[in-house]
């Protein structure tokens, strides 16, 4: 396996694929490399079309339905089954179709998967990956689009990743499957079909390592998942306004790469954290708290946060479009930050 530490995904690219294809390839390659890797979830096998959007398509045809198994609609049982199998040597990749459905499996994730290593004094551990998709954009309304990553980041024992491009989607999945602890792997539904160059087979993106998606000098924008791409797009508008934005893709939300973020903000003196989750008590709060502490006196302006409003996701198109940060609002927020006095 190749491991490119802080390298941008480009280093690993060979041909264009979608994020969906990259996730599929990563699981397939991991299953090929290790027959302890197994997959379970609703509709994941090929008789059920390899998942509602086809992320696991072809896997059961190739590896057998004993290793790629469609389940009843029973998220507690899905995660419990993944946990149990992981305790005896398997590496399950479990799908909880949408992130809002993690709410029916929280006990298994938080009280069990995250804690068994600790509570057993290190005798057991739970190397599972929980894949889940979410995100606004498809008019699904209040119960299908939430970004809840802050809950899991607040849970000791869990790791949380959220790729923004195909190469990282591949490399983070390989790292997540290799990892000895439970990893929540967040996929953005509307971004599944976003293209990008593919990772080389075997490419691993180590957990906990961010990458600098765009270099800049005046303001650091920290993001992840789909919104990262909005931030990259915003950088052009920011440049047009006369400022240079450095855009950091966290990739891993917990543990997050403090070193890379601190180094960047030490350089720029300004930081905007943006994500699709609601701002209040979100991931941006932790990052802002740490930066404010570590870079006290260094920050030129307070860390700004741009998330969703403190409200459920609305259905109506114009409301939904105004809900999550987009390139325009990110650019505005970053430019405002740059224009403020030191």
């Amino acid at each position, binding site marked *: 396996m190749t491991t490119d530490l802080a390298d941008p995904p480009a280093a690993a690219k060979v041909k264009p694929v979608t994020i969906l294809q990259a996730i599929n390839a990563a699981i397939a390659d991991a299953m090929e490399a290790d027959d302890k890797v197994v997959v379970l979830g609703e509709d994941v096998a090929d*008789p*059920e079309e390899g998942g509602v959007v086809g992320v696991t398509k072809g896997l059961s045809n190739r590896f057998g339905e004993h290793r790629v198994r469609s389940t009843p609609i029973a998220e507690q049982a899905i995660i419990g089954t993944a946990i149990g199998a992981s305790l005896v040597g398997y590496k399950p990749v479990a799908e909880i179709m949408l992130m809002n459905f993690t709410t029916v499996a929280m006990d298994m994730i938080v009280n069990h998967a995250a804690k068994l290593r600790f509570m057993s004094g290190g005798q057991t551990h739970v190397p599972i990956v929980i894949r889940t998709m979410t995100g606004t954009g498809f008019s*699904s*309304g209040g119960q*299908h689009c939430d970004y809840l990553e802050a809950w899991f980041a607040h849970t000791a024992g869990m790791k949380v990743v959220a790729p923004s491009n195909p190469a990282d989607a591949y490399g983070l999945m390989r790292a997540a499957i290799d990892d000895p602890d439970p990893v929540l792997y967040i996929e953005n539904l509307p971004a599944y079909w976003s293209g990008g160059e593919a990772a080389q087979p075997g490419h691993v993106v180590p957990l906990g390592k961010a990458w600098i998606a765009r270099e800049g000098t005046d303001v650091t924008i920290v993001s992840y998942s789909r919104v990262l791409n909005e931030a990259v797009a915003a950088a052009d508008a920011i440049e047009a306004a006369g400022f240079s934005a450095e855009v950091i893709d966290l990739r891993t939300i917990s543990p997050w790469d403090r070193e890379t973020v601190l180094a960047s903000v030490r350089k720029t003196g300004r930081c905007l954290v943006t994500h699709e989750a609601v701002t209040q008590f979100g991931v941006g709060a932790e990052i802002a708290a740490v930066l404010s502490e570590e870079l006290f006196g260094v920050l030129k302006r307070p860390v700004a946060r741009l998330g969703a409003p403190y409200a459920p996701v609305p*259905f109506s198109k114009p*409301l939904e479009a105004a809900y999550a940060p987009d390139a325009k609002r990110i650019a505005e927020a970053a430019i405002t930050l740059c224009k403020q006095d030191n």
Partner: protein
Amino acid sequence: MTSNYAPDAATQLEIYRRVALLKANDERSRKVIKTGRLVMPYYSYRGQEVIPAATMTALEDTDYLVTIYRGIHDMLAKGMPLKDLWAEVAGRVDGTCKGKGGPMHLTYPDKGIMVTTGIVGSSMPIACGLGWGSQLSGDGRVAVATFGDGASNIGAFHESLNLAAVWKLPVIFLCQNNLYGEHTTYEKATSAPRIADRAGSYAIPGVRVDGNDPIEMYAAAREAVARARAGEGPTLIEAMTFRFHGHVFGDADGYMDKAQKAAAVEADPVPRFRARLIAEGIATEEELAAAEAEIEAAIDEAVEFALASPFPELDELTRDVYGVAA
């Protein structure tokens, strides 16, 4: 079964009127989505119309309904006005939820349509609470929770049926068994030959009926309503049916058994019901055609109304998150 609850001619006509409304509305919805005039996740209920048409006819307006993403048939049958519905699924201010809920979260308390949920299984615990409210106040209202066959495998089903049974709540658990949960067949997900038999786990009546047969369906609903109103507790009804289309609009349904589907469509309960009403002299072709034409006109009007209605202002984004403390 239970022929003492057989619907009389007028009731059958009323059930048919609702069936026809539901079918026409589904067909129109798919058409409007196909033309791009509407964008929404749409879960077609074509093939399942008889279940809610008969069940809701057995209820009063004041009775409660908690339904699911695949629930527009349930709501229309319970009395959701077409304009409020269409404006809502179009995301407009004149929608019943001001466009903020959308097709998976329609609410219309005036007709007892209290909650629509997008979470599998979650209609049931809430229906228990509505039933508890009726029991506490003694107002005799019944709460119906609808859900699918796939939902009968999730924890909320079990917790709700047991609690409703122990508390003898006036709740009807109405399982619309369309043989698929998303792309998964009934057999592959459900280790019970009949969901109705699961009632045995709670010592309550469980009945499997042909949900496509308005007489059988109505009788089962009436009996469950009578039990509930008499304080005898909940009933589990498993209504057998079939989903004519894929899980969600746009789903190519390659995973569905072709022959099974063809047979189901061939046995479409709506024209069957219609033909029988005429054959039995309950209605004439002309009467039914007139009723259907009226329905089409009402839908026309609702669609135009909806698409002419404005979108909500952006300040709605943060409105209705909280009320004001008493």
